[in-house]
């Protein structure tokens, strides 16, 4: 990285009138890091900047000596073209490494799906091989995209659990993970499968104790069950990615501390998802 304050299209450069008084390396301009994030999706992000992604974005912006500016958008179908593509922001925090609609940074954590049970359950559901799977009321996030299924949704179908599975569309009031956790706590579900980073938080906020167990994919399951999470920048914006990579590396301990505070279950780096390196190879 050659400069802390490069002038590039993807970074808005704002002149500061009394910049001469500031002791920054580039005295006449203050760079801005424009981040797109969800306005109401705790624990990941909300517009009060209370989510762990918001905290991580703050750390990265500090490291880049940039002013953090948010564009609050739903991370739903077409979100890349409607945000980065429409030049509303330069960075999405919290996307799967290798997501091909963006250029992704080095991953800063890796997580997977978890089984959620009430802590007082005598025989909690912890495996796709459990013979009770077909009769239990299992809650699962429902994505809503043609012919798509979340990995645990597909695993449930393969295990023959179709009759009593309860789908929670990501559309609607509050996050699907939040609605699932509430129904589990209230006894309307026997168990649930939830994306780990959300589970940790809702367990912490549930009215009754809930238990988290890592969900291991069924043997031979062809769909990834763990995901490395990175930041995404515009395709071709390798300079910004390089800077973000360096910042993520330098501040890795701070980022880990934030993830710990939010009880984000993490996995050691594995080899089952596309890495940022292979993503780069696909660039023209």
């Amino acid at each position, binding site marked *: 990285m050659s400069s802390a304050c490069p002038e590039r299209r993807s970074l808005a450069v704002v002149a500061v009138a009394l910049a001469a008084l500031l002791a920054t390396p580039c005295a006449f301009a203050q760079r801005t890091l424009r981040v797109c994030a969800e306005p109401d999706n705790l624990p990941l992000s909300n517009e009060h900047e209370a989510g762990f992604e918001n905290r991580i974005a703050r750390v990265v912006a500090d490291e880049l000596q940039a002013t953090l500016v948010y564009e609050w958008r739903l991370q*739903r179908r077409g979100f890349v073209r*409607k945000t980065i*593509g429409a030049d509303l922001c330069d960075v999405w925090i919290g996307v799967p490494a290798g997501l091909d609609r963006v250029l992704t940074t080095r991953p800063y954590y890796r997580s997977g799906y978890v089984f959620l049970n009430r802590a007082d359950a005598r025989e909690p559901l912890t495996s796709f091989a459990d013979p009770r799977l077909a009769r239990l009321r299992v809650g699962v996030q429902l*994505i*809503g995209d043609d012919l798509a299924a979340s990995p645990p949704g597909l695993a449930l179908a393969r295990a023959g659990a179709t009759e009593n599975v309860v789908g929670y*569309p*990501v559309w609607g009031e509050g996050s699907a993970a939040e609605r699932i956790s509430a129904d589990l706590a209230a006894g309307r579900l026997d168990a649930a499968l939830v994306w780990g980073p959300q589970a940790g938080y809702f367990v912490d906020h549930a009215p009754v104790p809930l238990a988290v167990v890592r969900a291991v994919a069924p043997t031979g399951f062809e769909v990834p069950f763990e995901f490395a999470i990175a930041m995404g920048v515009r395709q071709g914006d390798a300079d910004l990615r390089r800077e973000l990579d360096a910042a993520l590396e330098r501040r890795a301990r701070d980022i880990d501390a934030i993830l710990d505070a939010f009880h984000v279950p993490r996995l050691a780096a594995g080899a089952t998802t596309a890495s940022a390196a292979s993503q780069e190879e696909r660039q023209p």
Partner: protein
Amino acid sequence: MSAVALCGLDANAAAAAPSSSASSTASAPSGDWPVVGHDTQGTRFSPLDQIDARNVGTLKLAFSFPTGLDKGHEAAPLVIGDTMYVVMPYPNTVYAFDLRQPNATVKWKFDPKPSASAQGVACCDLVNRGAAYADGRLFINTLDTQTIALDAATGRELWRTKLGDISRGETVTMAPLAVNGKVLVGNSGGELGVRGWLAALDAATGQVAWRAYSTGPDSEVLIGPSFKPFYANDRGKDLGVSSWPGTAWKLGGGNAWGFVSYDPALDLIFYGTGNPGPWNPEQRPGANKWTSGVFARKPATGEAVWYYQWSPHDLHDYDGVNENILIDLAIGGRERPVIVHPDRNGYVYVLDRETGQVLSADAFVPITTSTGVDLETGALKYNPLKDLRSGETTRNICPASPGGKDWQPSAWSPRTKLLYIPHQNLCEDAGPYQVSYIAGTPYVGVDTKMYAGPGGHRGEFTAWDPVARKKAWALKENFPVWSGALATAGDVVFYGTMDGVFKAVDAKTGAALWQFKTSSGVIGQPISYRGPDGKQYVAVLAGVGGWAGAIVSSPIDPQDSTAALGFVNAMKDLPLATKKGGTLYVFSLP
């Protein structure tokens, strides 16, 4: 205001007495276009013959109007008396044009002010397919699920009713149909777990008279003693529940986002239901009733009379919402009241509209996903080799998920006895599963890539003979033909292309007769009307977009081959061929 009153009279006559037989050519045919499909039967046939095969070559632009909007313009203008009404894509502005003025000045404009957040919800561009008219009132739907009645003379709002919930992904893009004092409206959003319905609103007050769901118990589907489906597998109690696992029907889709047609003689409405959603097919074993099929209902009560399922347990997002055109055909030596329906699954169906019996079903595009329709049982015969279950790449899925034909409506000419079908020629490869991302949930979607089908062209305009059960002629088009079709008594047929050419061809032979280069691609529904000056006009909205054209109307990276649900891969060169932006074009003879 005598002209306005006269307009109201004309319109009442047109709305109250739709020609019960599409082939009626009375001595003084109405010059109006009072329904999106011209008539409630959806023929899109104009009885006007001033413009014919001999003179259409001299057709000239009469006037035009830039809409100032960039989203896909799919609507049909309506013409009642000396006023033309056009509803725009989001934000669903309505214009009334005074056709007595040389350049058709704006008589009034109405801004319904729909919720801006509806934009983030809509599946496939922010389109609107047109308005409805009855008894001096204009009815429009907004993207954020409102139906609004306007005084057609002044544009004054009379009532508005909110029918759905956009926060759950529910939107409305379809054109309402006014029938016997009711306004029929259906919702969109099946991919997102929105349960489909068709509602009837009281045209006078906006109150919901009935709402018929496409999934769930009989009481909510409005299935009762009148329900007599032709095929045995559609008979039984609460099939809208039992043909799904558990409670999956509650999120089951089956949205009624296509055109509704009405037969005044039988007093029945007909409409298609969309694909099942939002579950992966593996998670929803069963026929998933009443999705991807067609309902016949009584408009007064909503009671279902029959149902037929085009694509049981829809595996390929084939929907079932394409238009049901109501005509009478000589089949087996007698005249039968039928529905002609070119489906997304690739077959042109002819159904007896009294009973729902399938009389014929013939492929109008190359099909690999099924091998035919069993005329004994009505069952679509799926090809298991094109099932996506394996998790490996499934190649050569034809037709691709937009189908042999999508929403773009066909036209029927009672003179040539041909159905004019605007459609695509697309196949797709699906999988292997690919990581995507929505709302904090990494998930695995089928990575779909569409491409031109056999022949290498992506679109076609086909004239189909439903009695002989074969193509009469077909024109190849580079891009999918995403516009509606218009047939006229002058034996001229009109349609537009996505690269922005509005065309007239000979209804009998398909021979090119005339064309006009529009500023943006055409995905609207062409219409024809007689102006106050006695001349025949042809009108169409240009303005590319929609699912197929989103690559131009929305900032999509052509490198992102899976954007717009895989359609972008097939449309990478469209931005080079046209640009976005809506314009109303109206043509006449010099």
